[in-house]
């Protein structure tokens, strides 16, 4: 059966060049980069090379890159490390209602431990209002944590405006750029970011590796205490193969960002147009323009998301949903809730996230398979009254 993968926001396949880059570090070059002997020397260069590759992609200096085990660790480290280090300055964080759980759950944990957190609301497109951010800042505010692009809707936040506000009030700015990296240009200088988190497996790198950009001079308590790796910012023997893979993935992303993502954007737009033309009563969730080029989140009214995904799966199509059944809780996606999406439509929300391996045939296949599935599930739905 034909298989179409349109869940790149969940994870991506490792690019062949990335795998090539990683392989020597399992057997031939197995050393610990902290060792002084030949085996260590063979690999320490690889870690530093990867550091440069990551730094180049986001326009910072290599010394400002800290390798981590994943995006979630990066977010935890940024938030908890800031709160601990800036205890004397304040205890207030400003974030949004639509952050990834790696940020939201960390904020909830910090609230239980004496922090105050303001969760900025979003409008129907999932967009925040910078004026509200400015109003939320108090003299106790130590951190603004606002993502670059949303994983569910693709909505892009105005990071440059946020960075300017952070600078004006001298508040640290952390951004979860896990979804933006490799899909759109990301420049930490332009956006005036202090802490930026990325993850390998969303950019054609391996799972279980990530990095945090920590602007020079940023005081932060480590999340993982131990040895002296990563200039004392993050202990633990380097996962050399994964780090080398992350570096290569970032290099490729930098080279291909324009070509790849113009193509991906065209495919996404073709899918979006095709769905809107072929199927009535479909609602776009996310910003019409300010959106990651690969992401399309729509609600097919009267249909629950999981049943749609199962039908897709039977046709070889991999997508994802914000329904309760797929979010692993009894509630549909918090992002849909924050956007004020009507509850039944939130259960219907379906995310297609495309990537560089998708083709026009993939899109046309989805467009061919989708209408009869939607029609059949609607016929089954007690909410659906067929329009005469």
């Amino acid at each position: 059966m034909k298989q179409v993968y349109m869940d790149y926001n969940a994870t991506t396949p490792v690019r062949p060049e990335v795998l090539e880059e990683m392989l020597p570090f399992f057997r031939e070059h197995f050393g610990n980069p902290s060792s002084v002997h030949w085996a260590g020397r063979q690999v320490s260069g690889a870690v530093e090379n990867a550091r440069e590759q990551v730094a180049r992609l986001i326009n910072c200096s290599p010394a400002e890159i800290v390798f981590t085990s994943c995006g979630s660790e990066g977010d935890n480290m940024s938030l908890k490390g800031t709160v601990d280090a800036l205890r004397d300055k304040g205890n207030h964080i400003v974030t949004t209602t639509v952050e990834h759980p790696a940020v939201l759950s960390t904020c909830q944990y910090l609230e239980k431990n004496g922090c105050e957190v303001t969760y900025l609301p979003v409008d129907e497109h999932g967009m925040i209002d910078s004026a509200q951010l400015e109003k939320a800042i108090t003299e106790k505010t130590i951190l603004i944590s606002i993502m670059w692009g949303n994983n569910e809707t693709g909505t892009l936040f105005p990071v440059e405006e946020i960075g300017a506000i952070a600078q004006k009030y001298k508040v640290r700015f952390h951004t979860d750029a896990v979804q933006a990296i490799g899909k759109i240009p990301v420049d930490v200088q332009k956006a005036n970011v202090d802490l930026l988190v990325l993850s390998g497996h969303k950019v054609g790198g391996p799972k279980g590796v990530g990095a945090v950009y920590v602007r020079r001079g940023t005081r932060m308590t480590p999340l993982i205490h131990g040895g002296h790796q990563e200039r004392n910012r993050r202990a633990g023997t380097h996962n050399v193969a994964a780090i080398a893979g992350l570096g290569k993935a970032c290099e490729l992303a930098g080279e291909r960002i324009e070509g790849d993502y113009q193509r991906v954007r065209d495919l996404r737009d073709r899918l979006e147009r095709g769905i809107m033309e072929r199927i009535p009563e479909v609602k776009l969730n996310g910003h019409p323009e300010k959106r990651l080029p690969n992401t399309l989140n729509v609600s097919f009214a009267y249909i629950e998301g999981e049943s749609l995904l199962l039908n897709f799966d039977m046709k070889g199509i991999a997508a994802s949903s914000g329904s309760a059944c797929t979010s692993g809780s009894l509630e549909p996606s918090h992002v849909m809730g924050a956007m004020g999406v009507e509850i039944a439509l939130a259960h219907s929300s379906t995310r297609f996230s495309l990537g560089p391996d998708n083709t026009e045939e993939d899109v046309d296949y989805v467009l061919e398979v989708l209408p009869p599935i939607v029609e059949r599930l609607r016929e089954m739905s007690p909410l659906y009254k067929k329009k005469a």
Partner: protein
Amino acid sequence: MYSEKVMDHFSNPRNVGEIENADGVGEVGNASCGDIMKISLKIEGDVIKDIKFKTFGCGAAIATSSMVTEMAMDKTLDEALQLTNAAVADALDGLPGNKMHCSNLAADALHEAIKNYREKQG
């Protein structure tokens, strides 16, 4: 994650639809939990002669709805009232744990439909 039987009922659901001028109709669930099941009955004497369902919900919700219509067809009302959500899940070779309470309401919908019929009978 789902048994073969669940997937069978999900992909080929039995008795989908709504009976016109039904003798009894039952609806359970709500949009906020993501599952709504509606069952309609044709009753002759004391026997369910026809039963149809419409469901908004996940794979488990659709499969249990389909299964309950098969189990209740041609049963007397008292027999149908003995059917439980657990029995429906068993007949499907079980449901994943997290689906047992949220999407396993089909027998409740059937019972509501019978109740509605009996109320109308007075």
